[in-house]
């Protein structure tokens, strides 16, 4: 059954320009058959949330390597709630100390992929958790 393709926004908030990981993820998700939209560098939480709504994505993948996750993630989660888009799954990866993970999960991040995660794991996680899309 040809359902609607899962749509993923890969976003880089904050000031860091390290986009190696984000780009590898974009290609891997595309090769896995997802629709991928990449925001490019240095997007504000407002820009990311409005792209997510405009593109009607199922998942937002945040790549943060600057250490600003504890400030940027709550802003993005609040904005999603404010715009009634809290059903979008938010996942994240990058340089995130273990001790920050519970706090981020409490804010509503669905999953954090730490360094060394395989692109396979990320693809599998998305397929498993975004089941509704194929049923639409």
């Amino acid at each position, binding site marked *: 059954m040809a359902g609607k393709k899962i749509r993923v926004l890969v976003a880089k908030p*904050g000031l860091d320009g390290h986009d190696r990981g984000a780009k590898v993820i974009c290609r891997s998700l595309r090769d896995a058959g997802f629709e991928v939209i990449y925001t490019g560098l240095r997007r504000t939480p407002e820009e990311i949330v409005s792209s997510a709504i405009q593109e009607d994505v199922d998942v937002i993948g945040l790549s943060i390597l600057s250490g600003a996750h504890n400030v940027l993630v709550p802003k993005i989660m609040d904005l999603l709630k404010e715009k009634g888009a809290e059903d979008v799954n938010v996942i994240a990866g990058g340089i995130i100390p273990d001790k920050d993970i519970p706090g981020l999960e409490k804010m509503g991040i669905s999953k954090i992929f730490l360094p060394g995660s395989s692109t396979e794991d990320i693809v599998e996680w998305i397929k498993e958790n975004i089941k509704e899309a194929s049923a639409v």
Partner: protein
Amino acid sequence: MKKNNPSQNPLKQAFSIWKKEKFDKVMRDTDCDQSGFTTVSGKKIKELYTPLDLDGLDYAQQLGFPGEYPYTRGIHPTMYRGRLWTMRQFSGFGAAEDTNKRYKYLLSHGQTGLSVAFHLPTLMGIDSDHPLAVGEVGKCGVAIDSLADMEILFDGIPLDKISTSMTINPPAAVLWAMYIAVAEKQGVSPKVISGTIQNDILKEYIAQKTFVFPPESSMKLIVDTFEYGAKEVPRWNTISISGYHIREAGSTAVQELAFTLRDGIEYVEWAQKRGLDVNEFVPRLSFFFNAHNDFFEEIAKFRAARKIWAEVMKERFKAKDPRSWWLRFHTQTSGVSLMAQQPQNNVIRVALQALAAVLGGTQSLHTNSLDETYALPSEDAVTIALRTQQVIAHESGVINSADPLGGSYFVETLTAQMEKEAKDYIKKIDDMGGMVKAIELGFPQKEIADSAYWYQKAVERKEKIIVGVNAFEMDHEPIPTLKIEDTVGKQQLARLKKIKKTRNNSEVKAKLLDLKRAAKDDQNLMPFLLGCVKAYATLGEIMDALKEIYGEYKEPITY
């Protein structure tokens, strides 16, 4: 380098017998897959190298003695007997006071030079009170908004004795002006200070993506620093042409080598267009490479780099002063090779990478800390990193003889191969019309993204093994990491506010106007930048003034 040399025939015969009757025979009986013997860059390596591989090697032409053209074996005749490499740990976090304390700690424990890590707002040329700086202040490096912060950063550090490297790119000229101003306040003349500004915008467009202005204006600012430095700050390296970030973004060793050297050629060409003499400014160009996991490939890369650059300067640019032929370089061990899993293993990775850098003849070295996949390094972690260099320098014995691997069948073959492959890339970029053109075409960016993707997939297929990640996994306890308190941001904003209130604001306005006028008239901006920083204009104000004239670069979004 291979010629048909009849005197090698008996050896050739003996080798083919050995290969068939010994090596292949044993391999046939074992179940060992032969496809996996490649470098971390995917380069195939043979089972054995012999004199046959070096047949035709001309010692004088391809290697020479250390300190002699083409410098394959090192730029100094005495190498580490004359002077060890500079142990220079890249460091910066929090407010200027915090980093000043760390510098004094490192200097008191045997570090011999400073290397400033700025926080992301400074790297991007915006102030700590900019909306995009929220959450970033003091996180990835030290917060510097104005000369006032810079005065605190170097408080009590004698700038006539300590050399300082500053990793800063689009706003490099501004931070350099601040450094010159701090030195003057200490009573130290610009003629005496020494150090390096990274100031390499091409690799930013290619790899690290910290850009502000469009390429043409960025190149103009860089040539300004070459011109000013050659006359006024003669002991300063006005650029550090960097392969480090190209490699970290996923390139192979050859791509790192080729793109970096082609960037170097691009800078020389743009400076020549202004009428600068290669014998005057090129001796102050320096390089910065990555030391990645593949031990011999890295050593070959450093050796090939020296040889190609010497040839480029002598043959292509007709430089007469031998100092223009020297490729002097700093090395940093590879950040991306550090693993979050079983982080103590990173100490071993760093030691091997650092050893490769030393065997490759580096002039200066940064060793990464074991905890850097989590946060900026703790004091304990950075101490182990520094001790790693000291063990190599003082215990291993590798410094006793220059270029100790010179003459190795394997290393010489690999060096010659890397030289050839890098030259092919350089030729390709020449044909595109130079590096700025190649960047506009997205060529180096695409090559790097392809390599990064290939490597990730190779790891996932377990063709490349990473200990603790896709093999030998086990659980480990979390390690202690450095935390930057959020109060740093508040303190920094308060200081910035105070500076803006207490300085002479009409002077600031006048100096910024002078700067804009000079930019419009295409004058060398260094004297005007000095005027601005001495009046305590902030970095953000200065960069905004220049953005009005030069505009901003927008990157095409691709993956």
